[in-house]
């Protein structure tokens, strides 16, 4: 649920283009690692985890408006660099059947990447502190989901900003007529018809997402914790 389930055409063009650019930048940073390991078994492993994530994201828990991601489990096993690629593949395939818009694939990949990478580092750290895989898995998943959902909400909030007014080139900049030094006033006050654009109710959106999401995070935290415990029991060393 942490990624943006927004359709195309809701977020401004500059924002989703920025998402694609940032994602391309990340690929460029890790290009060396991808090239080095492209003959390794990492690619089939990545493909398998991408498939697991696609399957899990297709299972909708309708009353909660939630689906599990399994991004933290995938992030822990794949590692940060390969997980970024995995999240891109997953989002592009999901967009093929309308699960998230095609234009927001870049932003969605970034949000899920943050979730998986944060989960990876938190799990590594918490495992040493808590000494219990189940608790480390649960806490790292819930925190990662909280952060990634906040990021997704932040993107929606940024999406409401009109760049033309932000950089002072839009209508608002000219609302007050300057009188100048010589004060040549016409006496007529130029009235600017201010466009009344009712705002998108971000608080309502926030409450709905956090309300449904918080139940989902706990649920996903428990499932992830169960999966990690199972993996560690059946195949010790897999999480090293």
């Amino acid at each position, binding site marked *: 649920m942490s990624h943006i*389930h*927004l*359709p*195309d*055409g*809701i977020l401004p063009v500059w924002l989703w283009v920025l998402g694609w650019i940032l994602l391309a930048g990340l690929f460029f940073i890790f290009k060396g690692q991808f090239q080095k390991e*492209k*003959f390794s*078994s990492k*690619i*089939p*492993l*990545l*493909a*398998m*985890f*991408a*498939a*697991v994530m*696609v*399957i899990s994201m*297709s299972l*909708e828990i*309708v009353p909660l*408006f939630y689906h599990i991601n399994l991004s933290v*489990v995938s992030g822990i*096993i794949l590692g940060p660099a390969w997980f970024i*690629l995995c999240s891109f*593949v997953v989002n*592009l*395939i999901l*967009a*093929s*059947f*309308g*699960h998230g*818009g*095609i*234009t927001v694939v870049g932003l969605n990949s970034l949000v899920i990447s943050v979730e998986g990478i944060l989960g990876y580092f938190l799990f590594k750290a918490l495992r040493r502190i808590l000494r219990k895989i189940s608790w480390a898995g649960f806490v790292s998943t819930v925190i990662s989901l909280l952060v990634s959902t906040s990021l997704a909400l932040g993107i929606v909030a940024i999406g409401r900003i009109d760049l033309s007014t932000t950089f002072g080139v839009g209508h608002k900049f000219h609302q007050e007529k300057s009188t100048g030094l010589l004060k040549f006033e016409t006496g007529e006050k130029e009235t600017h018809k201010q466009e009344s*654009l*009712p*705002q*998108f*109710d*971000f608080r*309502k*959106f926030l409450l*709905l997402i956090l309300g*449904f999401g918080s139940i989902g995070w706990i649920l996903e935290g*428990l*499932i*992830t*914790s*169960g*999966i990690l*415990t*199972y*993996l560690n029991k*059946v*195949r010790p060393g897999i999480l090293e």
Partner: protein
Amino acid sequence: MDVAFLDYLATSRKSFLHSFPVGLKIIFSLILIGTIILIHKILFLVIILGFLYLLIFVSRLPFVKILLISLYPLIFALIFAYASLGRGWEWFFIILLRVLGTATTMILLFSTTPYPCIFASLGRVFPEFLITVFFMTYRSIFILFSIFENIRTGFRLRGGIQVKHPKRSLSNFAKAFGYLILKGMDDSQRFYEGLRLRGFQGKIEHNRRYCTWNRR
């Protein structure tokens, strides 16, 4: 599973749209999505949606099934549309129509074009390495899907999801996915060994000729 169903439609059906060149179909879909994004009039959005539904009929695709898949993204869009009610009901319907429009466009593209053909066409834009990842993921989805079907049976036999026993239900669910991951990892390793044996050099060759007019 929507991916499997769309793939089945793309490979098993025959129509004008099925044999249309893939590159043109992708460009046409992107133009259509761009138009849907830019349009702010309900009437035009309804016309585009009507045109898409007409294409579904012409392509002899199961209309109700396609419609149901395209309705799926509405679950999430409703939250956004509800929060946007301050802009009026027109905006509410514009959001829903945009979701339906873009989702139907994508579904129409993928239900008339096999995934490998789309990936092969994307090879002109994306690096070959990425296309290889797409091919393998596509293949893995079907492998895992068959494993998942067996796991579902086992999951039900173990009690499935019971509201009265949430702890047991969650434990069963986690074990089912844990098993799916382990099986997936084993299969990916076996798959990789097979590929290396056949001379895999980090790139899967694909034949673009398969995806042209004369395919059928």
